[in-house]
């Protein structure tokens, strides 16, 4: 049971509006109980990958045209978001999509939508245990909360759904470095204590690789590199372009340096 | 002679001038000239009195619809008071000719300007209101103006209304539908041309920016309140000119026609025609006016033939039903309206017989 695969994405292509292809054969898998991070620059297709998994492509007129997505062995590609969330896959959207006119506690209660009618008091306690900042603000409108509180709110809200697989889209977006650190610590704790499997999309590769077990690097709608988190951290290309900690001072041309791009491709 | 321009296979615009040009190809120009010749040389002489009357009605409504299209389609400010603005134009023209003795041309222009001023007043709430709230404020404007038409008896004649005297322009009697046809359509062509050009200026672009994201537009340095008011005033000017022509067209006016239903009809015209499209506003007007005519003829026909009068009276609401159904079907199946259908037909012809 140790290395059971929770999510298997097999060679998927995603097309928006029947014409715009954004993913060109992405494969990745997420082991149960692990944190897997998905890195890449803007427009690489990270968010689209998450949306393909959570079913949120549909409202944006996108579709998985090829390949398959399996969750605990059963196919889920192109299912509706209602079905997918009820299987326990919850996506935390990019950019803190809070419900502005609901109070913090009401926001958290929306998270119980997938298991409507079940008691939720204990879950509220749990969320407040991880994010004490929310307890203070629980009666105030979410629209008036700060960015850090909102990020905690949306993660907490997703936790209310008892997710088996939590998809986090850029939890560090627009937050102060200290807050980013705190949020990532909490993510790690949730993973350890609740056994939640996580797939984290991040720009902040440094943070993401510190807590992750495994990592993927995406570019132009393809996975270009995958490895253990430690190996990725040590990889010179990742260091150069995502961690910004390369030894040499002078900036080199983007195209010349990446070894995985220089490799001959036969496709 | 310079080289004729044809449609390229794709979008190959290389400069902003090209992007801004009205006609992509020389054929566009040719078609426009043919259209104008048909409009002024053929139609008025080939049509009978009844058809001319309908065509004049279409032309007049089209002017007001163009104005509303600027407000809703370009600037994104929904107004449910356009019917009343149309009425303001009609009353202004009627009062100016009968009381102050203005000549025809001056009263039409003055009516337009006066309606523009009224439009600005009722556009003032747009400084603070958006979307639904603005919609309801304009609805209130509609009712308030209607109330003024009915109750300010010394000026508007109350429910009896005003009867206009015969108008003349260049010695021609405007009673004659054919003469009036030329006036209406010259106005329509001129105003349409203005609108097409307005869209290409900084004002037009500012309007569209406000529609798409007013906050961002403000951030770009567009004084959105002034531009909203400008949009209200231009659109009311169009409504006022349309209303003034309507007064001369009908020769007598009462508050009756300028009710909420007329506002709804105007909105229906631009929705069915296609929001934010100038030809769309024209198509929508043709569609709605024709639909109205066909439906009232149908009920009349059913009243005369076979069906007993009792049943025929209850058939009259069918007109309303069909009207509503048309709006509903258009929104579901062709939200971009008749303009989109026209575009599809045109582009399939353009490439015929080689469809790629």
């Amino acid at each position, binding site marked *: 049971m140790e290395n059971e695969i929770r999510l298997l994405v097999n060679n998927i292509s995603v097309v928006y509006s029947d014409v715009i292809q954004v993913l060109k054969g992405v494969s990745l898998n997420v082991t149960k109980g692990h944190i897997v991070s998905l890195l890449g620059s803007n427009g690489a297709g990270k968010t689209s990958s998450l949306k393909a998994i*959570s079913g*949120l492509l549909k*409202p944006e007129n996108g579709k998985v045209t090829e390949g398959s997505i399996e969750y605990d062995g059963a196919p889920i590609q192109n299912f509706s978001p*209602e079905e997918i*969330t009820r299987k326990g896959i*919850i996506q935390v*959207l990019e950019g803190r999509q*809070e*419900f*502005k*006119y*609901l109070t913090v506690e*009401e*926001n958290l*209660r*929306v998270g119980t*939508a*997938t298991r*409507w009618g079940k008691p939720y008091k204990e879950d509220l306690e749990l969320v407040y245990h991880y994010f004490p900042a929310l307890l203070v603000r629980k009666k105030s*409108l979410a*629209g008036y909360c700060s960015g850090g509180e909102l990020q905690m709110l*949306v993660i907490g809200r*997703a936790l209310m*759904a008892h997710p088996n697989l939590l998809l986090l889209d850029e939890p560090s977006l627009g937050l102060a470095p200290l807050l980013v650190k705190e949020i990532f610590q909490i993510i790690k704790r949730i993973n350890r204590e609740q056994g939640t499997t996580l797939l984290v999309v991040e720009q902040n590769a440094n943070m993401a690789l510190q807590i992750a077990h495994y990592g993927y690097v995406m570019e132009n709608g393809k996975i270009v590199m995958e490895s253990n988190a430690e190996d990725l951290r040590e990889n010179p290309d990742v260091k150069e372009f995502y961690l910004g900690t390369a030894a040499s001072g002078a900036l080199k041309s983007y195209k010349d340096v990446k070894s995985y791009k220089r490799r001959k491709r036969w496709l | 002679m310079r080289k004729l321009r044809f449609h390229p296979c794709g979008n190959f615009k290389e400069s902003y001038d090209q992007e801004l040009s009205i006609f992509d190809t020389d054929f566009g120009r040719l078609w426009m000239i043919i259209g104008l010749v048909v409009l002024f040389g053929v139609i008025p002489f080939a049509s009978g009195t009844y058809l001319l009357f309908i065509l004049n009605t279409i032309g007049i409504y089209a002017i007001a619809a163009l104005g509303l299209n600027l407000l809703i389609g370009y600037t994104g400010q*929904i107004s449910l008071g356009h019917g009343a603005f149309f009425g303001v134009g009609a009353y202004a023209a009627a009062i100016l000719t009968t009381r102050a003795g203005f000549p025809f041309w001056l009263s039409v222009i003055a009516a337009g300007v006066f309606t523009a001023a009224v439009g600005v007043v009722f556009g003032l*709430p747009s400084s*603070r209101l*958006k*979307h*639904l*709230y603005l*919609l*309801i*404020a304009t*609805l*209130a*404007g509609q009712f*308030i103006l209607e*109330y003024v038409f009915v*109750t300010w008896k010394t000026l508007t004649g109350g429910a009896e209304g005003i009867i206009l005297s015969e108008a003349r322009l260049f010695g021609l009697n405007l009673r004659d539908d054919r003469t009036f046809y030329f006036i209406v359509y010259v106005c329509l062509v001129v105003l349409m041309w203005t609108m097409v050009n307005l869209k290409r200026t900084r004002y037009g672009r500012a309007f569209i920016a406000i529609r798409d994201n007013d*906050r961002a537009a403000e*951030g770009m340095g567009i004084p959105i309140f002034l531009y909203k008011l400008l949009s209200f005033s231009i659109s009311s000017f169009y409504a006022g000119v349309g209303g003034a022509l309507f007064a001369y067209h009908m020769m007598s006016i009462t508050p009756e026609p300028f009710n*909420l239903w007329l506002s*709804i009809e105007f909105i*229906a015209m631009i*929705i069915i025609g296609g*929001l934010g499209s100038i030809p769309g506003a024209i198509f929508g007007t043709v569609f709605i006016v024709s639909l109205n005519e066909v439906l009232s003829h149908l009920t009349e026909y059913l009243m005369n033939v076979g069906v007993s009068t009792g049943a025929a009276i*209850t*058939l009259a*609401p069918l*007109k*309303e*039903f*069909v*009207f*509503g159904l*048309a*709006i509903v079907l258009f*929104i*579901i199946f062709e939200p971009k309206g008749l303009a989109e259908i026209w575009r599809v037909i045109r582009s399939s012809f353009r490439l015929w017989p080689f469809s790629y």
Partner: protein
Amino acid sequence: MDFFMQLLVNGISLGLLYALSALGFVMIFKSSSVLNLAHGELLAIGAFVFLVLSAWADLPIIIAFSLTLIGTFFLGFLVERLFLRPLIGEKLIEVIMMTLGLGIMFKGLLLFIFGGDIHAYPDFLPEGLSFELGNIFIPSVNVATFVIGILFLIVFGFFFKYSSQGIYMRSVADNQPAALSLGVHVRRVFAMSWAIAFIVAAISGIVLGIINGVNVHSLSAVGLKVFPVVILGGLDSIGGAILGGIIIGLLETFTGGYISTSLREIIPYIVLVIILMVKPYGLFGLVEIERV
């Protein structure tokens, strides 16, 4: 003084009537941000369904009433499924135009079937509810309106504030993609809100029908009166709708009583414009939170 008191009582009962009519409207707006321009027609549909069942089919009142509620509930589902679901994600103006088109369609259909006459329900309200306050007589139907209005206020207030379904509905109106990502069944929420709105409208329509008679024109006109009422109270506040209704009712009766009857019809709109200029979100509406 008696005249004043009579106007006061009339104003409050008229206002409660408006408030009751506005509730279904607020219901739809709260859950899907749709401004329903067909609301007057919804009132009329409920009133006429009840008319057919109670007066024409001669069913016992209780059965006719329950059947009306069930019937309009499913009608609401049907209307949402056929006309509004295709528009999910479309622009606001298209949805508004759709409700406008639907309203015209329904009105035409009702006029076609029932004509423009005023119909009446059989008498069924117990007389015992009426009472006299000093010199002023308060008929049972006004008492019934009052009771129904307060009941709705409490039920819906609790529903939106505390029940999970109510919170899900508000979340959908607030941020649809986020609601979707958390597994809120958005389509079901829309369908439910229309179905419930149809029921509420039916009840309001029946009450209106008892007082003024059942007539397509007057019922659909009430649909327009709803706007000043809800705007005054704030579009999404149920308590505000009740208070707004009472204010408008009082304004109308007092203007009619002391100034002129023709001004009576227009005064709500004048007040509406003034209120909107001072407080753009009504007296109790949520201030729009805009973060750029």
